[in-house]
């Protein structure tokens, strides 16, 4: 009640200021009158009485001030007044305001944008029930692992998953899922959408409630369910089904089957994978129905299900791991199916399951980009510091102009605290404007960051809406900035002893020298931080350049990858090779195509496979594990990889002729039988669907990159596609052609349709795929370059400000020197020399910082060491250049000083 009445009283006083003021005057007057009357009564003369009463009262204004300060509303008034003054000052100097707001906006915006992405990717948990309880279950180590991994995340096979689901007592609940692509037919038009295989209990375990209809239960995921219903995501329902509530129960054609839509997931749930959303979810048991080729439900060599478990209430990770440890032998023994290679059984049975915490779900985006993003955040932080230094300098300049005003007020009784408070409040509007524009900028920057990270065929979906963490971060940043650039000048401005400040003449006393030192110190810090940023930018740019020009061993330009799906044609296995050959020949005959050939694994696509190989006649132990690929004849010609010895595959190599292989130089080196292994025979261990086989090496090719541009050359064995014992109805063909893309693709589609219109065709440009694989390097080069340029610009502005101020200060001195005979050029060069000194000092301070920072990014670099002297020299040179350019105008001004004018004015 007291608070409330105080509040009301205060509010009323705010609106009755004049009345309150006159009341106070009246009360004080009344006091003095009563006191005077009393003294008269006691025998003083009227004059003495009045004087004594007045002396007792003291300064009426001071008393009124004390009375007022008992009330809270004065503080509000003062705060409001300071704020208005700040706004007026900003409006009066629009140039300063524009520069300051822009500086702040860039600094805060860059930091917030990067933090937003980090927050969405790293710091947020999944929008599910108790995400902290979720763990990821996977193999402890992959020694001797065989098979085919379908997803980027750790995965188990379906038999393994089913055993864990049915027999585990370790977790309170478990779930499994796998991302996939599903073909949706809309009209007569087929589209690929993002699909998700999920276990029956998936939504229940995550605590996701349907927005419409119902979601899966465990009875939806039973053996032999076939193509039963599907669940769609909220965004899919809105965009593809028009948000129509009648969509529940209607059918959707998925993979050629008409299935009912059972329900819609809630808005905001985008699946367990951060960075990707899903459109359609189907139960795991229906995998065999939608995919005509390849039933993974009963396979021990198809690892495709990501399994997660919820810890027991009160349970811990170590308890869960102990439970998994004891469950493992039974799990692997029971999950073994016929297709697992016999040679690797022992390794299989020794596998162990292990669990890791996964409250944020899984994210390829996070795994790949987390460290670059943190590094970028650090760099952006440096930029913000540089921006703050600029603002501090600007405020210092402003503050020094008001030194007199503060001196007067200090001597009149104002406290330092009050003045500093006022200065801080005055900078508040600037801060608010800057932070607001920074937030806006961050929104736009964040979106372009996401666009940068999306690649062809893999569009990124990250929920960037600002949550409390981001807003809190921005607020913290803004406060920190304000304190940095507001407090120091405030302290400086009020430090001067009033008597010093009041001396006549412009303030050129000793206090100024200290302020100069502070200014120079700030600029030196700016240069030092800029050195870090510019060096980083140079290093990342060189890394990207190195990767773009590295010799990959094949040509990258003018290559098109065509993916063909022949499954609709229902070709019997025996005829498939012939049909595929016919299609490749057709493609070869397309006018404008110079060469075409099949390939099993496109280089640098991220896929890989390997197996054990040893020389014929020796034993398995002496061998090693090269990578494998399957190629048609003409592959090396298509990709421009020279055949160094022997021959390429040709029409004589059929499934019935002796098995042949080609190898690269690195393989020959590892085999250790001389530089030219053509003619030698090698044994390959049994693969999931093939027995142990002997191959004769018929050709030797130059080394080429297999999976990653950064790798050292690995040994590769190429097998003939034409000798494929078990061909599937899919094919990838790489074509070399100089035709423009639209013409090429339309001609290819024509040629394929000529064979049969039921073959679906998909295109990817090889060069774009390679560029996409360099995504994180491109990201770092682009962003660090942007930040480096920003830093250099801000430092230039800072240097300009400081040198400008110095010149103004020294106008008098320059005038004297010129009067005594100094020439314009001497003055110019002395100013430039001083600037260079400042810059060099900054570079000197920045060198050790740069050394330590660049050590942190060593793992991200390629072909260049973090302490590369050329990079450092370039950065230093660039900064010197920037400094000289910034000082040029003030230096010219100094040289243009007219001695007479300079000596005349004070």
């Amino acid at each position, binding site marked *: *009640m*007291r608070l409330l*009445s*105080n509040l009301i*009283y205060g509010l009323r006083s705010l609106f009755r200021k004049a009345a309150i003021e006159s*009341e106070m005057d*009246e*009360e*004080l007057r*009344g*006091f003095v*009158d*009563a*006191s005077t*009357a*009393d003294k008269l009564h006691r025998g003083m003369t009227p004059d003495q009485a009045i004087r004594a009463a007045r002396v*007792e*009262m*003291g300064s009426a204004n*001071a*008393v009124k001030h*004390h*009375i*007022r*300060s*008992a*009330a809270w509303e004065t503080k509000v008034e003062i705060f409001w007044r300071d704020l208005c003054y700040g706004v007026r000052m900003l409006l009066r100097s629009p140039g300063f305001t524009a520069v300051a707001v822009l500086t702040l906006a860039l600094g805060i915006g860059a930091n917030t944008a990067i933090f937003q992405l980090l927050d969405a990717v790293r710091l947020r948990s999944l929008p599910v029930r108790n995400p902290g309880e979720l763990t990821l279950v996977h193999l402890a180590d992959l020694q001797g692992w065989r098979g085919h991994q379908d997803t980027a995340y750790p995965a188990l096979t379906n038999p393994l998953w089913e055993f864990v689901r049915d027999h585990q007592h370790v977790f309170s609940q478990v779930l499994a899922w796998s991302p996939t692509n599903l073909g949706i037919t809309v009209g007569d038009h087929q589209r690929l959408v993002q699909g998700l295989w999920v276990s029956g209990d998936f939504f229940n375990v995550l605590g996701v409630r349907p927005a419409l209809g119902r979601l899966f239960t465990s009875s939806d995921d039973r053996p032999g369910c076939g193509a039963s219903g599907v669940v769609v995501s909220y965004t899919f329902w809105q965009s593809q089904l028009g948000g129509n509530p009648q969509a529940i129960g209607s059918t959707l054609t998925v993979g050629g089957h008409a299935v009912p839509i059972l329900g819609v997931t809630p808005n905001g749930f985008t699946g367990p994978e951060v960075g990707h959303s899903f459109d359609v979810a189907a139960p795991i048991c229906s995998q065999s129905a939608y995919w005509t080729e390849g039933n993974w439900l009963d396979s021990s060599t198809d690892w495709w299900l990501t399994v997660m478990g919820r810890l027991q209430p009160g349970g811990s990770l170590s308890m869960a791991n102990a439970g998994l440890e004891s469950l493992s032998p039974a799990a692997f023994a029971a999950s073994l199916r016929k297709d697992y290679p016999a040679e690797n059984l022992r390794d299989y049975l020794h596998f162990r399951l292990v669990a890791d915490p996964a409250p944020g779900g899984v994210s390829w985006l996070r795994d790949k980009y987390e460290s670059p993003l943190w590094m970028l955040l650090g760099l952006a932080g440096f930029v913000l510091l540089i921006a703050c230094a600029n603002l501090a300098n600007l405020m210092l300049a402003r503050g020094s102009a008001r030194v007199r005003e503060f001196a007067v007020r200090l001597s009149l009784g104002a406290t330092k605290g009050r003045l500093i408070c006022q200065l801080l409040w005055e900078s508040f509007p600037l801060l608010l404007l800057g932070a607001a524009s920074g937030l806006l900028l961050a929104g736009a920057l964040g979106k372009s960051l996401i666009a940068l990270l999306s690649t062809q065929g893999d569009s990124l979906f990250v929920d960037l809406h600002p949550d409390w963490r981001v807003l809190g971060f921005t607020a913290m940043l803004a406060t920190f900035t304000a304190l940095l650039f507001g407090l120091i000048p405030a302290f400086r401005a009020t430090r001067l002893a009033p008597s010093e400040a009041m001396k006549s003449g412009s303030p050129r006393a000793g206090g100024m020298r200290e302020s100069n030192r502070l200014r120079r110190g700030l600029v030196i810090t700016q240069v030092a931080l800029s050195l870090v940023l510019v060096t980083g930018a140079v290093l990342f740019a060189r890394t990207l350049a190195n990767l773009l020009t590295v010799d990959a061993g094949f040509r990258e330009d003018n290559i098109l990858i065509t993916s063909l799906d022949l499954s609709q044609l229902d070709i019997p296995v025996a005829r498939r090779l012939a049909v595929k050959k016919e299609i490749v020949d057709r493609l070869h005959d397309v006018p404008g195509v110079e060469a075409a050939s099949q390939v099993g694994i496109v280089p640098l696509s991220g896929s890989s496979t390997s197996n054990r190989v040893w020389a014929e006649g020796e034993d398995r132990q002496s061998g090693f594990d090269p990578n494998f690929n399957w190629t048609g004849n003409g592959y090396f010609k298509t990709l421009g990889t020279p055949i160094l010895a022997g021959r390429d595959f040709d029409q004589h190599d059929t499934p019935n002729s002796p098995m042949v292989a080609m190898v690269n130089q690195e393989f020959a080196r590892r085999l250790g039988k001389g530089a030219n292994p053509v003619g030698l025979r090698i044994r390959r261990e049994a693969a999931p669907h093939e027995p142990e086989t002997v191959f004769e090496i018929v050709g030797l090719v130059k080394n080429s990159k297999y999976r990653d541009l950064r790798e050292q050359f690995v040994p590769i064995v190429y097998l003939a596609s034409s000798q494929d014992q078990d061909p599937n109805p899919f094919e990838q063909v790489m074509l070399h052609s100089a035709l423009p893309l639209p013409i090429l693709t339309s001609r290819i589609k024509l040629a394929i349709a000529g064979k049969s219109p039921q073959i679906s065709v998909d295109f990817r440009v090889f060069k774009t795929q390679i560029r996409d694989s360099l995504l994180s390097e491109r990201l770092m080069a682009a962003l660090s370059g942007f930040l480096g340029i920003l830093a250099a610009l801000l430092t230039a502005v800072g240097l300009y400000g400081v040198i400008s101020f110095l010149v103004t200060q020294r106008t008098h001195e320059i005038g004297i020197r010129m009067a005594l005979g100094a020439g314009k050029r001497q003055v110019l060069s002395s100013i430039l020399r001083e600037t260079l000194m400042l810059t060099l000092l900054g570079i000197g301070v920045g060198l050790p910082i740069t050394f330590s920072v660049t050590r942190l990014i060593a793992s991200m670099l390629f072909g260049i060491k973090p302490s590369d002297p050329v990079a450092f020299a370039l950065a230093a040179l660039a900064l010197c250049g920037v400094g000289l350019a910034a000082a040029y105008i003030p230096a010219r001004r100094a040289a243009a000083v007219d001695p007479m004018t300079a000596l005349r004015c004070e």
Partner: protein
Amino acid sequence: MGQRDVVQGTLEMLILKTLALEPIHGYGVATRIEQVSQGVFRVNPGSLLPALARMERAGNVKSEWRASENNRRAKYYALTARGRKALSQEAATWNRQVSAIARIMEA
């Protein structure tokens, strides 16, 4: 601290006690404190009036403009119920403190 200032922290208590007798204006409070303390304490308006304003904000006293004894307008302060309670609390605390000091000084 001047020679005749009240003991630190007791001003509000003394004002409350003064007002407990009857409502009075600011000058009246100052006069009464000086008289009853027989000249030991003397409160100047620079401390008294702000103290009164504070106490009014705290809800311990209330004020109204009335005609004074010589027929001029003056601001009269009076205790509120809350103020009475505050007075008894502060008086109790003060008495406790004084007895303790006395015990120590006589030991």
